[in-house]
C-alpha cells in the first residue's frame, strides 16, 4: 500500500480535523491511504461516532428489570411477558428529507425498520415525529407533502402500520425539517439476535440491493451544517425500495428461525464500513471482506466508493461455517441472492481487499470504541434571560375566549392531523386498537392478552425556554399519554435533534436536555434502551428549536381495557386530574395570539406525575375510566373539545379560576394554561366517588368539572360562560385547517 498524500483540503472534505488525523496516524502506526481515510471519516463523523454527545448520553438510565437489551445494539428491547420482547427504536432522517423530502423520509422509514428486524423482531408498528416551518410557505408545504407521501410510500408498501405520531410547526424548522421515525417489533425474548461477528472462519454474507454510488458521504453530510454548498452534496440522496426491503424482512426472519446465523446488521449510514467494523468490534473479532465480490450496480466502482456507499436495503450476515447452503436457499426462495464476501478473522481488524489485494487494514476498535469523544464547551445562551421573562400584565388584553378558542383549534399544531395519517396505512396487520385520532396509539400483541401503547412527544418551545425542564416535560407527556390509554410505561427511546454542537450555547442546550431527560426517566422509572442523536440542524447558522423527542412504550395487561380519548356516553362525569396554574409560558396561546415564545415552561413535580400515571393505569385496568385525554397544547379548553370530536358528544364544564394570573388573563389561564400533569377523564356518574377516592389516596388533585352531553361545547370559568360552540362547528374548524392548506392545487404549486 502506498499511502496517498493527504492534504488539508482532503481532510476538510472528509470533515476530519488535523488532530483527528494525527490520531489516525498514531493508531495505524503509518499514514492512512485514501480508502482508509474515508472509512475513518464516516466512522468518526458525528452521525456514527456520537463524538459530541457520548459523554452526555452515558448519564441516561438504561437498566431496569424488564430491559433485555440496552443501548449499543441496533435497537433496544424490553420484556413484555409471555416470553416476548418489544424491540424498538427511533431514528432521524432530517437532512436527507430536506434535500429530497419523499426519498429522504422513505429511506428513513426503511432504515429504522431494518434496525428492528435485524434484532429478530417482526416490526408491527411505526410512529413518526415531524417538524416543519409555517404552512403559509409554499416550500414548506411541498416539503411536508413529500415527507408524508414518502413515509406512507414506504411503510404502506412494506405492510407495517403507521399508527401514530406528532407534528409541530415553527419558523426555525423551515430550512431544516425534522423527520424522526419510531418502529416497534415483537420477538421471542430468548431469540433476540445481535449484530455480532464471531467464530473465526465463519462466513460473512452480503444480501439485498446492489451497491451503487448513492449516498456516498451521506453520514458525513448528516453531520454537517447546511450551507450554500448544498447543491454539490445533492447526489447524496438515496432512493428507497420498499419491495426489496419487504423481501429482506421476510427472508431474514426466516433465516433467523434456523440457528445458522451468528449475527446480522443492516447497512445504514456508512454502509459496509459501519456494519463490518461494528460487528467485528462487538464480537471481539476481525472481519475480512473482498469488495470485488460485493454486488455492484455501477461499473468502475472503487473500494472507497463501495465501502462508503449508502445504498439502501442491504444487510450483512455472519453465518456459521457449514450452514451456508441452508441460508442461501432461504434467500433464493425470496429471489434474493446472498453473496459470500468474506470471513471472520481472529485479529480484530477490518481488512478490505480488492481481488485479493489489501486496500484497507484498520483495527476495528479504532473505528468504534476508540473513536474520538469530545466534551465540548457549553455556555448559557444569551437569549435565555430575555426569553424567560413573561409579564402578562404588560401584554395587550387577549381577544375573547371564544375567539381564542377558534384560533387555537385552527392552529396547525393543534388542528386535526387527519390529512397526514389518512395517507398512512394504519390498520394493516389488524392490531391497531386505537386508530390515529382516537387517542394514544395502541396495538395488540396477538396470541397474548396484552397490548402496547406508544407515544412520541416533545414540545420544542419548552425546551428552548428551559432545556432541562423542557426535556423532563417531554418525558412526562409521552409517559402520560401512554398511561392515558392504560399503559404502564416500561421503556423509552429518544431522538435528540439539536443545532451545531460546536457552538457552546447549543451544546449547553443539549447537555441540559439530556440531564433533564435522564432525571425524568429515573423518577418515572422508564429506562432508555437506545436512541439517536441528530446534530447540526441549522440552516445558514440559525438553529432549530432544540427538540429532544422521546418515544415511550407502555404495557397494557388487558387488551380489552384500552382507554381512548373520546367521550363515550351522555351523562358521564368529566373529571380533571391535576391542577391548573398560571402557566402560559411557551404556550400555544402565546404563540397563536401574540406570536411569541416566552416565559418559563410549566413546572413539573415528577412525584406528582408518577402518582397521576398510576391512577390512570389503575383506573383503566379496573374499567373505571371511560375516556382519558392529556392536557397539552391548548390547555383544558382544547382538550375538552378534542374529547368531543370523535363521538360528537358535547360537554358542559365549569373550570376553577387561576388566582395568580394578572386580572385580564385569569380566564385565559384557566382555559389555555399548559400546566403539566393534568388529564381530563370521564367516568360513569356512579364511579365518581371511587375515582376521586383513588386520586386522593395517590395525592392527585381531582375535581369534577362537568358532564358529557348535548351537542355543544360549553365551558365556563367560575360560573361565567366563556366558550359555547356547537361540537360540529368546532370540529369543522379543527378538522379542515391543515387539509385546506393542501387543497390539491395549492399543495403541488
Amino acid at each position: 500500500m502506498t499511502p496517498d498524500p493527504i492534504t488539508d483540503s482532503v481532510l476538510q472534505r472528509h470533515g476530519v480535523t488535523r488532530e483527528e488525523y494525527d490520531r489516525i496516524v498514531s493508531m495505524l502506526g503509518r499514514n492512512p491511504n485514501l480508502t482508509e481515510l474515508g472509512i475513518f471519516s464516516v466512522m468518526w463523523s458525528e452521525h456514527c461516532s456520537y463524538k459530541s454527545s457520548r459523554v452526555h448520553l452515558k448519564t441516561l438510565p438504561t437498566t431496569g428489570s424488564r430491559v433485555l437489551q440496552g443501548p449499543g445494539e441496533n435497537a433496544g428491547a424490553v420484556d413484555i411477558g409471555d416470553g416476548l420482547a418489544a424491540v424498538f427504536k427511533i431514528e432521524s432522517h432530517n437532512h436527507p428529507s430536506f434535500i429530497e423530502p419523499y426519498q429522504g423520509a422513505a429511506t428513513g422509514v426503511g432504515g429504522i425498520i431494518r434496525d428492528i428486524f435485524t434484532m429478530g423482531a417482526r416490526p408491527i408498528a411505526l410512529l413518526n415525529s415531524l417538524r416543519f416551518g409555517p404552512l403559509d410557505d409554499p416550500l414548506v408545504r411541498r416539503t411536508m407533502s413529500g415527507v408524508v407521501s414518502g413515509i406512507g410510500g414506504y411503510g404502506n408498501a412494506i405492510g407495517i402500520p403507521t399508527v401514530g405520531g406528532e407534528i409541530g410547526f415553527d419558523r426555525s424548522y423551515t430550512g431544516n425539517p425534522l423527520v424522526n421515525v419510531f418502529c416497534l417489533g415483537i420477538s421471542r425474548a430468548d431469540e433476540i439476535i445481535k449484530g455480532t461477528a464471531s467464530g473465526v472462519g465463519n462466513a460473512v454474507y452480503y444480501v439485498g440491493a446492489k451497491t451503487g454510488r448513492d449516498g456516498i458521504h451521506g453520514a458525513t453530510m448528516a453531520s454537517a451544517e447546511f450551507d450554500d454548498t448544498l447543491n454539490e452534496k445533492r447526489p447524496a440522496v438515496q432512493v428507497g425500495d420498499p419491495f426489496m426491503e419487504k423481501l429482506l424482512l421476510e427472508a431474514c426472519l426466516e433465516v433467523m428461525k434456523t440457528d445458522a446465523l451468528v449475527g446480522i446488521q443492516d447497512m445504514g449510514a456508512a454502509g459496509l464500513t459501519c456494519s463490518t467494523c461494528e460487528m467485528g468490534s462487538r464480537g471481539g473479532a476481525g472481519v475480512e471482506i473482498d469488495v470485488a465480490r460485493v454486488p455492484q450496480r455501477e461499473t468502475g466502482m472503487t473500494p472507497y466508493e463501495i465501502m462508503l456507499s449508502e445504498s439502501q436495503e442491504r444487510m450483512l450476515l455472519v453465518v456459521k461455517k457449514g450452514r451456508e447452503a441452508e441460508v442461501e436457499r432461504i434467500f433464493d426462495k425470496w429471489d434474493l441472492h446472498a453473496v459470500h464476501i468474506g470471513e471472520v478473522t481472529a485479529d480484530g481488524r477490518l481488512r478490505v481487499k480488492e481481488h485479493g489485494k489489501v486496500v484497507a487494514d484498520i483495527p476495528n476498535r479504532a473505528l468504534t470504541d476508540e473513536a474520538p469523544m469530545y466534551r465540548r464547551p457549553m455556555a448559557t445562551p444569551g437569549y435565555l434571560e430575555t426569553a424567560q421573562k413573561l409579564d402578562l400584565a404588560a401584554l395587550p388584553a387577549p381577544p375573547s375566549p371564544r375567539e381564542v378558542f377558534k384560533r387555537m383549534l385552527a392552529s396547525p399544531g393543534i388542528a386535526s392531523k387527519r390529512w397526514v395519517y389518512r395517507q398512512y396505512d394504519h390498520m394493516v396487520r389488524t392490531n391497531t386498537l386505537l386508530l390515529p385520532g382516537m387517542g394514544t396509539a395502541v396495538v395488540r400483541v396477538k396470541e397474548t392478552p396484552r397490548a402496547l401503547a406508544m407515544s412520541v412527544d416533545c414540545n420544542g418551545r419548552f425546551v428552548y425556554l428551559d432545556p432541562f425542564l423542557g426535556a423532563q416535560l417531554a418525558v412526562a407527556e409521552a409517559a402520560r399519554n401512554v398511561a392515558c390509554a392504560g399503559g404502564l410505561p416500561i421503556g423509552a427511546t429518544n431522538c435528540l435533534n439539536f443545532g451545531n454542537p460546536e457552538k457552546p450555547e447549543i451544546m449547553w442546550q443539549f447537555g441540559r436536555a439530556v440531564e433533564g431527560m435522564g432525571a425524568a426517566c429515573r423518577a418515572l422509572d422508564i429506562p432508555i434502551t437506545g436512541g439517536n442523536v441528530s446534530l447540526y440542524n441549522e440552516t445558514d447558522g440559525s438553529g432549530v428549536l432544540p427538540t429532544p423527542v422521546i418515544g415511550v412504550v407502555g404495557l397494557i395487561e388487558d387488551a380489552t381495557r384500552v382507554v381512548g380519548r373520546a367521550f363515550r356516553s351522555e351523562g358521564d362525569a368529566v373529571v380533571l386530574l391535576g391542577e391548573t396554574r398560571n402557566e402560559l409560558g411557551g404556550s400555544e396561546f402565546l404563540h397563536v395570539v401574540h406570536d411569541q415564545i416566552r416565559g418559563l415552561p410549566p413546572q413539573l413535580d415528577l412525584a406528582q406525575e408518577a402518582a397521576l400515571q398510576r391512577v390512570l393505569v389503575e383506573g383503566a385496568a379496573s374499567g373505571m375510566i371511560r375516556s382519558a385525554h392529556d392536557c397539552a397544547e391548548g390547555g383544558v379548553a382544547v382538550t375538552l373539545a378534542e374529547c368531543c370530536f370523535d363521538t360528537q358528544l358535547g360537554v358542559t364544564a365549569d373550570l376553577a379560576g387561576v388566582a395568580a394570573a394578572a386580572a385580564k388573563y385569569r380566564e385565559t389561564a384557566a382555559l389555555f394554561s399548559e400546566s403539566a400533569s393534568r388529564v381530563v377523564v370521564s367516568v360513569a356518574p356512579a364511579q365518581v366517588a371511587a375515582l376521586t377516592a383513588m386520586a386522593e389516596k395517590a395525592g392527585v388533585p381531582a375535581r369534577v368539572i362537568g358532564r358529557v352531553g348535548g351537542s355543544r361545547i360549553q365551558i365556563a370559568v367560575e360560573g361565567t360562560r366563556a366558550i359555547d360552540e356547537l361540537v360540529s362547528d368546532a370540529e369543522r374548524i379543527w378538522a379542515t385547517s391543515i387539509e385546506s392548506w393542501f387543497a390539491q392545487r395549492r399543495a403541488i404549486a
Partner: protein
Amino acid sequence: MKFAVVVFPGSNCDHDTEYVARTVLGQDVELIWHKDSSLKGADAVILPGGFAHGDYLRTGAIARFSPIMQEVSKFAAAGGPVLGICNGFQVLLEAGLLPGAMLRNRSLKFRCEFLHVGVEQTDTPFTMACRPGQRLRIPIAHGDGNYYAEPEVVAQLERNRQVVFRYVSASGEVSDEANPNGSVNNIAGICNEARNVVGLMPHPERACELAVGSADGLAVFESILKWGRESFDGDTLTMATAPAVLNK
C-alpha cells in the same frame, strides 16, 4: 373449509387474511407461495392485499404472470370461489379474470380510513350471507383504487348485476362525497359473469373483530362458509354444484 391465501412477493395482508380464516373463523388455511403450482385442495381462494412486486409498473401487472395464477384461473373456470381483496382485486383485473382497470385515486393520495359500502348482490359466494342493500363499515387502504372500465363495459356490468359493492354514505346514499377514489359509478367491488370471482378494494379482513373497529367484514367470510355448506355434496365439495347454489 379450506382456504388458500396466495402470497406474492410484496403481499402484506396475507397474514391478516389467514388470521381471520384460521383464528376468527376456525377454518383450515394454507398460505400458497406464488411460485407454487398447486392450490393444495383448497375450497376457496383469496388473493390478499399488499403491494405485489412493489406495485411497480402498475398494480398487479407483474403478479399476473406468477405460476400460481394459472391454477387460480383454472380453479375459477371450474366455478371455484375466488376473492381478490385490494391488491388481489388489482391482480384479478390485470389477469383478465375481472373486467376493467385501476387508475390512481383522483386525490393522487393513498387513502386509509373506515367507510361504508353497500352490498348490492347477494348471489355470490362472498355475499350470500348478506342482506341485499346491507351496509358494511369496512376500511380502505389504497392509492390506486379508482376503478375504470369502458362505458359499454360498465353498462354491461350494471345490466348483469355484476356490481357487488358500491361506496355509499353512512346513510346509504350513492354520492360523490361517498366516493373515496373516483371510481366510476362508485364501484367498490365487482364479480365476473359466472359470479364466482369477486374483487373489491375495501378490506373485509380488517373488520372482523369489534376490537379493531368493526366486525362487518365477517359477512364476507361467513358468506364463504355458507356457500361451502350449501355446495357440499356428501362430504366432498363439488365445484359442479357451485353455480347451482349461486343461481338458487
